[in-house]
C-alpha cells in the first residue's frame, strides 16, 4: 500500500515538459527525421544510379514506363504548354504595346526564355504533377499492401525493380516532352502574336537571341528534372505508411517535393550556367 502510494506520489511529482523543452524536442525530432530522410533519399539516389548501370534488364519495363510517362502525358502537356505559350505571348505583346509598341523582338525574347528556362521548368512541373503522382501512388500502394516486402523476400531489389525503369524512362521522355513543349509553345505563341497582334510569323521566328548556351541550359535542365522526378516520387512512394490515406499523402508529397526539386535544380543549374556561360 505504502509502496503504491509512493509510486503514485512519484508519478505525480514528475514535472510536465515546458514550452521551450517541447520546442527544442520538436526541433531535434525534425532534424533527426530530416537527416534520416536525407540519408534514405541519398541511398535511393545512389542505388538508382547504380542499378541503372549494373542492374538487371527486364524486357519491356522501360518501354512501358516510357509510354506511361511520355505518350500518355502528350495531350496534357500539349494543352497546358500551348496555353501557357499563348498567355505569355499575349501578355508580353500587351506590355510591349504599352511601352514601346515595337513588337518585332517579342518572338526573339520569347524563344530565348522558352528554350533557356520556361519550357523545361514549367514542363517539368507539369510532368511532376502527373508522372510523379503516378509513380508515388503505384509504389505507395505496393508498400502498404506489402508487395514491396514480397519483392525483397524474392531477392528482388525494389529500387531496381520499381524505380530504375521509371528513372530511365523519365530521363528520356521528360527531355522528349520538353522539346515537344518548346515546339508547341513556339507555334502557339507565334499564332497568338500573328492572330491578335498582327506580328508576322517570320518576324516572330527570330532566333538571333538564342544560341548554343541557351540550348545547353535547356537540355541540362531537361535531364536533371527528368532524373529528379522519379527519384523523388519513388522515395515518397517507398516511404509510404498507413494504408490508403498514407498513399494519398505519399502522392501529395511526391508532387510537392518533385516540384520543389525542379525549382531548386533550376536555380542551381541557372546559377552555374550563368557563371559558366555569361559571367
Amino acid at each position, binding site marked *: 500500500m505504502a509502496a503504491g502510494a509512493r509510486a503514485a506520489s512519484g508519478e505525480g511529482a514528475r514535472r510536465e515538459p515546458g514550452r521551450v523543452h517541447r520546442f527544442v524536442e520538436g526541433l531535434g525530432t525534425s532534424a533527426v527525421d530530416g537527416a534520416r530522410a536525407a540519408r534514405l533519399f541519398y541511398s535511393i539516389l545512389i542505388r538508382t544510379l547504380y542499378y541503372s548501370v549494373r542492374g538487371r534488364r527486364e524486357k*519491356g519495363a522501360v*518501354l*512501358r514506363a*516510357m*509510354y506511361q510517362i*511520355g*505518350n500518355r502525358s*502528350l495531350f496534357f502537356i500539349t494543352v497546358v504548354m500551348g496555353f501557357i505559350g499563348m498567355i505569355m505571348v499575349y501578355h508580353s505583346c500587351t506590355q510591349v504595346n504599352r511601352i*514601346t509598341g*515595337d513588337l*518585332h*523582338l517579342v518572338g*526573339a525574347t520569347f*524563344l530565348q526564355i522558352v*528554350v533557356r528556362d520556361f519550357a523545361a521548368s514549367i514542363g517539368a512541373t507539369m510532368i511532376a504533377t502527373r508522372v510523379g503522382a503516378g509513380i508515388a501512388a503505384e509504389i505507395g500502394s505496393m508498400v502498404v499492401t506489402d508487395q514491396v516486402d514480397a519483392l525483397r523476400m524474392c531477392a528482388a531489389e525494389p529500387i531496381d525493380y520499381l524505380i530504375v525503369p521509371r528513372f530511365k524512362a523519365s530521363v*528520356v*521522355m521528360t*527531355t*522528349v*516532352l520538353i*522539346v*515537344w513543349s*518548346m*515546339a508547341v509553345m513556339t507555334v502557339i505563341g507565334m499564332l497568338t502574336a500573328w492572330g491578335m497582334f498582327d506580328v508576322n510569323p517570320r518576324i516572330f521566328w527570330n*532566333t*538571333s*537571341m*538564342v*544560341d*548554343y*548556351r*541557351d*540550348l545547353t541550359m535547356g*537540355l541540362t535542365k531537361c535531364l536533371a528534372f527528368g532524373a529528379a522526378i522519379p527519384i523523388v516520387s519513388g522515395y515518397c512512394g517507398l516511404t509510404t505508411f498507413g494504408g490508403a490515406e498514407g498513399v494519398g499523402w505519399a502522392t501529395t508529397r511526391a508532387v510537392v517535393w518533385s516540384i520543389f526539386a525542379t525549382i531548386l535544380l533550376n536555380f542551381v543549374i541557372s546559377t552555374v550556367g550563368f557563371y559558366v556561360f*555569361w559571367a
Partner: protein
Amino acid sequence: MEERNLEIKVGIFVLVAAALLTGFIFVMGGISFEDRFEMYVDFNNPLWLSEGATVKVSGVEAGKVEEIAFLGGQLDPKTNRRVYVRVKLLVNEKVRGAFRADAEFYIANQGLLGEQYVEIDPGTFEAPPFDFGKAAQGKDPPRLEKFLIQGYQMINKIDRMLDAPDEDIDGLLVTVVQAMRSLDRGMSGIGNALEGNEQDIKKLLENLRKITDEALLAVHSARKWLDEGGKVDLILSDVRAVTQDLPRQADQLIERLDSTVAHADQLIGQVQGVLADTVGEDQRRQLRAMIANLESVSERAVGVADDVRTMVAEVRGDVEPVFDGVRQVMDSVQQIVRNIQRGEGTVGALLADEQIYDDLKELIRDLKHNPWKFFWRE
C-alpha cells in the same frame, strides 16, 4: 503485338522530339557549314556587345562575334593606334568580296531595347579592297548616359536663361519683333518695286550693260592711245629724268645763289664805304636799312634753297611708286571690264544671264513671304 504497338508509339514520339531537337540545335545553336574567315575590329567601348552576338553585313546576318578581348590601350604596330577592346568576328566567306577600304563597323541595337550586334557597312564599290591583315577601327555605340547628362546640362542652361530678368527677355523679344517688321517692310518694298516693273528693270540692266560696254571701249581707246609709240613710258621716263636731274641742278642753283649772295655782300660793303664818304646822315640811315633788308632777303634765300633740296629728295622717292600704281590700276580696270563683257563674275553674269534676274526676283519674293529665313533654316 501490343508490345510492338507500344514500341511504335514511343518510337514515333521520340523520333519526332529528336527531329525537333535537331532542328532547334541547327537553327538556334549557330551551327553553320559555311566557310568563315576571321577579322578584327577595335572599339574604345563596345558597351553591351557580347560573345556570340550576331554580325550583319548590310543588314543581312553574316557571322558571329567570336571573342571580345580587353587590350587596355596597347599600341598596335600595324595600325599605329592605341587599342582598348578588340573584337574578333567570324564572317561568312561569301561576303568577303564586298568589303572595301571605306567599310564602316558599328555596334547597333536590335530594336529599341534589343541586344547589341555588329553591323558592317561594307563600303563603296569604287573604293580599293579592304585590308584584312589589319584590325579595322569600329565606331563606338552612342552612350545613353552621356546623352542624358548633356541633355540635363542643356536643360539647366535653358532654365537659367529663362530665369533671367523678364525685362531682358522682353527687350530681346521687342527687338526681334521690330527687326522682323523692318525686314517685312523692306521685303514688301522691294517686292512692290519689282512687281510690275520687270520691263523697266530689264531696260535698266540693258542700259547698264551698254554703259559697261562703252566704258570698256573707252578704256580700250585710252589704252591704245597711251600704248601708241610708248607714250606712257615716255612720260614716265621724262618724269624720272626730271626727278633725277632736279637735285643735281638744285645743288648747282644753290651754289650759284650762295656765290651771288657773297658777291652782293661784298658789293654792299664797297657801296657802304663809298656812301660813308659822299652821302649825308639821313641818306646813310636809309641805305643801312636797305642793306639790312637785303641781308634778310639773302638769308631767306638760303633757307628756301635748303627747303627745295629737302623736298626734292622726298619727292624723288614718292613719285616713282605713284606712277607704277597708276599703271597697275589701269591694267586691272581693263581686265575687269573685259571679264564683265565676257559675262564672267557676278556682275558679268548679272548682265549676261537672264536666269539670274529671274532667280533674284524669286529670292526676293520668297524672302518677302518668308522673312524668317533670315534667322534660321528649314
